[in-house]
């Protein structure tokens, strides 16, 4: 069994239901994302079009994040899921440097790496991932890509030539596919990130990795001080610093 994902971008209407469902199901803290829906505007007025691309971990068959993890916190499950054991993670951020898709974040509450797990805990109890269940147009298709009769396999067969993965040149063999995408939507270098064009105005780079309020010294003191002092206003604090972002952001 090898679990895989397929998103039909021609169906996706950008409602962000999956994004929210993922946040709630997995208690993803503010300023972090396992799944996001990216809006890209294409064309020149009046010939314009908005595209929506849900982006999550690809659960690569040859995962650079798993390879670089020094303590096997990132590991493969038998069903192909690239899972993470946060109690083992040392927070070296090697995986964040290795994942070619920027799918991993440093959880600001636990100071350990985290990412989409294909909702491994739900799969274990026979449920579908939260983002699949919530999608009103069934643009997220999930299932066993080694079973020829599964919905996802049939969908892939039907769309053959139109099935794409992100950055195939990285030889990561993603198990996450897209239908209805193009270079402009799937290649991050094929679209511009300009200040002032985004609804998240002026935010191009996150200022911190892990907890913004947790200094290096705090990391050593944390086991003794407990987590009482930690707060989760990273996002609010980020808004206050927008000037720094635009100066340092390089965009």
């Amino acid at each position, binding site marked *: 069994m090898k679990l895989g994902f397929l998103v039909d971008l021609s169906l996706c209407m950008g409602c962000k239901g999956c994004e929210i469902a993922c946040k709630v199901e997995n208690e993803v803290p503010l300023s972090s994302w396992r799944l996001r829906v990216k809006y890209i*505007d294409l064309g020149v007025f009046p010939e314009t079009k908005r595209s929506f691309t849900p982006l999550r971990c690809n659960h690569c068959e040859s995962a650079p994040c798993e390879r670089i993890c020094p303590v096997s916190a990132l590991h493969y499950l038998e069903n192909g899921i690239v899972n993470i054991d946060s109690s083992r993670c040392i927070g070296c951020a090697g995986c964040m440097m290795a994942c070619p898709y920027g799918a991993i974040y440093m959880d600001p509450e636990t100071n350990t790496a985290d990412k989409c797990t294909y909702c491994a805990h739900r799969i274990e109890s026979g449920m579908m991932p939260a983002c699949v269940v919530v999608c009103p147009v069934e643009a997220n298709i999930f299932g066993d890509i080694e079973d020829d009769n599964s919905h996802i396999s049939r969908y892939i067969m039907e769309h053959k030539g139109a099935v794409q993965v992100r950055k195939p040149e990285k030889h990561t063999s993603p198990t996450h596919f897209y239908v209805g995408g193009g270079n402009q939507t799937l290649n991050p270098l094929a679209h511009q*990130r*300009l200040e002032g064009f985004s609804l998240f105005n002026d935010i191009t*780079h*996150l200022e911190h990795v892990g907890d913004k309020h947790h200094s290096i010294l705090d990391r050593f003191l944390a086991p003794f001080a407990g987590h009482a002092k930690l707060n989760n206003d990273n996002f609010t604090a980020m808004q206050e610093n927008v000037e720094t972002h635009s100066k340092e952001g390089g965009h």
Partner: protein
Amino acid sequence: MVENTIHATQAIVTLDVPIQGIVWGSIITVNMWAKSIGTGVVFLAAYLLYRHKKESMPNLRWIMPVIAFIALNVFLLFTLIDLHQPYRMIHIFTHPHWTSSITVGAWLASLFLGLVTVLLLIGVADAFPTLGGKNCKLSALARNNSAVYEKIMPFLVFLAIPVTTYTAIIMAQSSARELWQAPTEVMQMLWAAFMAGSAALILVSGSWSKEARKDLAFVLTIAVFFSFAMYMSEYFFSFKSSEAEATLAFVHAGGAYNVEFWTGMTLGFIIPFFLGLSTIKSDNITLLRLAAILALVGLFLVKDVWLKIPQMLPLS
């Protein structure tokens, strides 16, 4: 950052999350820089001991392990403080994952530091016979095993090769950052070790023979030249990957890190090359020391830029 947009499609992101930004920052630069010194002095000491009599470098036997010991501890300290869960560092030893060069590197570096500590104890105990007084068992043990120093040295030199280059493999395993390619990074790490090692020893070579110092000046000059040549060819001619090209085009265009890169290049490579070249002939200790200090400063700046710039790129 530069994108390969097609004008007709005018693809512009209108809603997205912020990019992660710099994940590995200056703490990792200090880590790499200090490791270059720690391993570089071992390479240089071995070379000098092969070429010259011990008497022409009277303090080398003890000062080399002292420098290496300090530098390696700085390296390990900065490795530790960069971890978001520093106490779990122990997991690298209790749950090692051998495909990761972080794991392999941590094990090798720990072994390397252990051997350097042995050299330090023997070297210092021999050089300062009154140290620790008559009753100090540790100095007595070190002095009684003085010959171990020369036996360990060849292993240490061989071990210094993977210890100095494993970071290059970590960078190569960081497949999200196309700028870092294993062959060039391995060579850059070796040149950095020769640069930093010769520079550090130049600073303590006041009492050495002219010939030994000339060798240090020679190694420094050669190392900065080849490292500079590699940086320049990467900086201007990285056409083969669109990500590396986009990363560098952003720096070329005067973006953040352009000034730091060229300051580092000028201070750490161009000036030390000419200073080193002139001192090979003239044995001007002051100029050579200046070259050494500049090389150490410039190396830090350039490593810092090279570490950070590929992290500016959006990955998805």
